[in-house]
């Protein structure tokens, strides 16, 4: 496969510069800003507040996601993002610790330059940590784009997203470090971070292309989760 040079000079597997800062909003219980190149998302967590919404199981904590676009009113796309984020975050939080409570996560888009949903998932994750919401593990999200020729690029800009044939948003569990031996943490002979939490695709692709996306996304998610862990650690030390 020949190297295709991207508009901003990155290689196919290269992510844009990442930046994560936490505890930036005064009134929220937890907040975080996640920047991926020019895409920037602000997430705030309020809760756990007493009571669950209608149609929710009161024996578990309820997660609510409110998506605020950069401008204008929310439409179907934002509703879909809210639903995907809600279900994704529900699966990484421990919902039985605070039953009959609601935790609201407000996602404010500051600037959209591609890979918006993955960026929002990463921001929400960092904000949940900042708020001290009990979680099973962290999640990292990544966007893969597929060109007509089967060429794959990671973390596309808005322009690249529009020019590509299809794309996949993937959310993986963060690799965990534990005192258990490595064999003990394997699920059916595979490490946990090989399973996917969320997958959303747009556009037609071959099944093999999708599996290829998974592989590349998985490799990149390891880098992302290292970054997330490092940035959470350094800020914890500076907090104390």
């Amino acid at each position, binding site marked *: 496969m020949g190297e295709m040079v991207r508009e901003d000079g990155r290689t196919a597997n290269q992510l844009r510069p990442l930046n994560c800062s936490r505890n930036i909003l005064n009134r929220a219980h937890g907040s975080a800003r996640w920047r991926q190149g020019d895409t920037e998302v602000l997430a705030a967590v309020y809760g756990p507040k007493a009571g669950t919404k209608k*149609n929710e199981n009161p024996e578990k904590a309820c997660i609510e996601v409110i998506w605020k676009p950069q401008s204008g009113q929310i439409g*179907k*796309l934002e*509703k*879909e993002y809210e*639903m*995907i984020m*809600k*279900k*994704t*975050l*529900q*699966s990484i939080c421990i919902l039985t610790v605070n039953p009959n409570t609601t935790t609201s996560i407000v996602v404010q888009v500051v600037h959209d330059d591609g890979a918006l949903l993955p960026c929002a998932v990463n921001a929400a994750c960092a904000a949940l940590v900042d708020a001290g919401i009990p979680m099973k593990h962290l999640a990292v999200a990544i966007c893969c784009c597929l060109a007509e020729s089967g060429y794959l690029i990671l973390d596309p800009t808005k322009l690249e997203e529009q020019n590509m044939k*299809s794309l*996949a948003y993937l*959310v993986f*569990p963060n690799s965990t470090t534990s005192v258990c031996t490595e064999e003990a943490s394997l*699920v*059916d002979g*595979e490490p*946990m971070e*090989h*399973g*996917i*939490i*969320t*997958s*959303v*695709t*747009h*556009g*037609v*692709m*071959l*099944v093999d*292309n*999708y*599996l290829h996306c*998974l592989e590349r996304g998985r490799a990149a998610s390891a880098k992302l989760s290292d970054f997330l862990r490092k940035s959470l650690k350094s800020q914890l030390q500076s907090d104390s």
Partner: protein
Amino acid sequence: MFCGKEDKLETMELPNDSGDLGSEMEVDAFRRLFPLRFYERHLAESIRPDARPLSRARDTTVALGAVASANGSALAKIGSTTMLAAIKMEVMTPSVELPDEGCIAIEFHMPPICSPLVRPGRPAEVAPVVSKQLSDTILSSGMINLKELSLVSGKAAWMAYLDIYCLDADGALFDAALLSAVAAFSHLQIPVVSLNDDGKIVMLSEEQDDGNLDKGAVNKEKRKIALSSIPFSLTCVLHKNYILADPTAEEESIMETVVTVVLDSSNQLVSLYKPGGPVLARTSVLQDCVALTRQRIKELQNILDEAISGMEVD
């Protein structure tokens, strides 16, 4: 109501006196109190409470032409999940950027009759999400060539309003909605229109059509739209190592991890949708889901073909 298989599931403390009312009540109570355990005991026997094997979808029917006033319509049923889809064609001015393309607007409705979870006056949360998924799938699959909906380049094109009503929401909403949408498009007949003297497009009703207006007819007879690479989908629920195809609403609410795979007729992946859920999907599980979908789209293609050939005989 309960078949023999369920009697086998009797709680251990009860003597096996199957048949009398008392034991049937026990199964019912067990199902309500411990729904997950109730299901797990079925799954261990490779069977589901409605007597389906894990990988079998429910009975599926498609009826074309359910709404006489629409230009194309269909009623699709998967088990008791029922969807009514209807298409209305209108003439519009195409946008400046795409002067020779028509347009499709897709809306998915969940009226309060479809499920006890939907209350009157309060729109269902999932309706806009399914609506968005449907338009993404239908438009990105390339099933319909939008250029075919053009009438006069830059002046007039068809706008297809596709409305899908959920009449009964019993799981796998997206599958049933997509099936009804595809069936409605295959039943769609584009009406006859002509250009009048002012250069405007007018619809011709059948009585009017005595040939005096045919000088400017844009399309002279009713025509069908050509569908290429039709997308079909299968929703699966994941629980532990089990994959349950085509879940009911009860199964979806108890086992929360849902994967929807959409493939087109050339087996290309149109969408692989897994919104979270407690079960992490490994690659092999996703491949199994794709394999199940491959089998299912053959069934669905046959069901649709039969419905179409049934219409042609009439």
